[in-house]
């Protein structure tokens, strides 16, 4: 064996059993959404993205991540067989190809003839394999891919809610320096952050608006700091650390759950303004990370403190 082949073999031993998790696509979208300007509320939290995104549903009725990846960094040991990769949650076609690539013989189990009359069809996502992921099978061994039976589609009931692209949303027009709008004035922004020209009206209930502020080089649709003003009391998150009278700061995840400072969470400050208004300030995960936790906390406190109601 020459050195090129030996090297290739060694590389195969190292990563040949590593598979990307089926959740990769949704993880990518989640990551993307986190830094997109937000302009809609779902209940108490701000989670909806500016761009319509269909997140593939990943079945959760089996243990996730129980794949062969766990053994990936172990020293190469000669195993007389093939470890069945974890394909649960994947699209059946994709699972089929992957098993085939792994040197196994996949068999897709379908509902069979007459299923249409019975009102069921094969679903797309794999719910289990036989043998299961992690089992060692002989090369070319049969692996059954099982998909759930689902009600056959009748008339498509799906309303085309968001048909891609940017929804049309009213804006506040030219705000000049972008610091005074909706009856408030943003009195302080950290160095290098300025108004990027966007604003959105009505995304957070009645009498609400939001304005994103950006750092140099940020793409369209992204924010570094976003300020939201409205009268919806849900904008006020009182469960964080109280840093001043009527002012709270914490980090929230996509579902509004409280998290530690980090890439998976959005640093958020909210404050009860005089009158009926509530203001919320968000630092995007990327921007927070660029500052570091201590500076980000100090800056967000300063930003929200310096927001005042304009006469």
């Amino acid at each position, binding site marked *: 064996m020459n050195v090129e082949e030996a*090297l290739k073999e060694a590389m195969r031993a*190292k*990563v040949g059993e590593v598979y990307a998790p089926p959740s990769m696509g949704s993880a990518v979208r989640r990551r993307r959404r986190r830094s997109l300007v937000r302009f809609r509320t779902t209940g108490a939290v701000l989670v909806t993205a500016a761009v319509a995104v269909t997140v593939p549903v990943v079945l959760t009725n089996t243990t996730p991540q129980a794949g062969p990846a766990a053994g990936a960094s172990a020293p*190469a040991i000669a195993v007389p067989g093939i470890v069945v990769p974890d394909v649960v949650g*994947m699209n059946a076609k994709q699972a089929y190809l992957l098993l085939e690539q792994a040197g196994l013989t996949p068999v897709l189990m379908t509902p069979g003839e007459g299923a249409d009359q019975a009102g069921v069809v094969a679903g797309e996502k794999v719910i289990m394999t036989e043998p299961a992921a992690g089992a060692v099978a002989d090369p070319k061994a049969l692996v059954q891919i099982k998909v759930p039976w689902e009600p056959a589609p009748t008339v498509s009931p799906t309303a085309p809610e968001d048909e*891609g692209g940017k929804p049309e949303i009213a804006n506040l027009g030219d705000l000049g320096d972008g610091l005074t709008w909706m009856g408030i004035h943003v009195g302080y922004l950290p160095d290098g952050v300025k108004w990027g020209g966007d604003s959105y009206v009505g995304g957070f209930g009645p009498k609400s608006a939001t304005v994103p502020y950006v750092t140099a080089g940020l793409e369209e649709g992204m924010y570094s700091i976003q300020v939201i003003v409205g009268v919806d009391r849900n904008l006020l998150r009182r469960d964080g650390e109280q840093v001043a009278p009527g002012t709270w700061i914490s980090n929230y995840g996509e579902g509004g759950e409280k998290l530690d400072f980090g890439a998976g969470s959005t640093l958020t400050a909210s404050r009860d303004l005089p009158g009926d208004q509530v203001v919320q300030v968000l630092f995007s995960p990327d921007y927070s990370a660029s500052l570091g936790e201590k500076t980000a906390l100090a800056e967000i406190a300063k930003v929200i403190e310096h927001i005042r109601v304009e006469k």
Partner: protein
Amino acid sequence: MTDEDEAAFDEFVAARSTALLRTAILVCGASAHDAEDLVQGALEKVYRHWSRIRADNPEAYARKVVVNSAITRSRRRRVIQEITFAAPPDTPVEGPDLGLREAMLTELRKLPARMRAVLVLRYWEDQSEAETAVLLGCSVGTVKSQAARGLARIREAMVEGVPA
């Protein structure tokens, strides 16, 4: 992004993410978990420009992003590794019982990041010299010389790794 763009992106991720992940692990020498994070980051860039690049070889674009961020990350790791290695180890780094593969992989990890990337692209991904040069933004001559030097060092490790 249209629904069709979204669906095509899903298909792309399903088809390519495992290959990208494997390449990332080999180039940056990181754990599968770290490499996954890196691939996610790269795919996010692909997703951002998806409607524009989907018709124009998104795979090459994704691979380029993955390889380059893996090089960057492995350079960052290297600083930490070098600090750790500064203290002399109690036992020789390469024990006699380590297999040939392990010796080669250890040697691979010790190579400069770019040289390692050349070897991974050439011998794991089977990219041609010209393709590798495009991916790394260097000349074909550089790919040739880096591959030759990298292989020479792996060969040495192979010879040493074979039990006497």
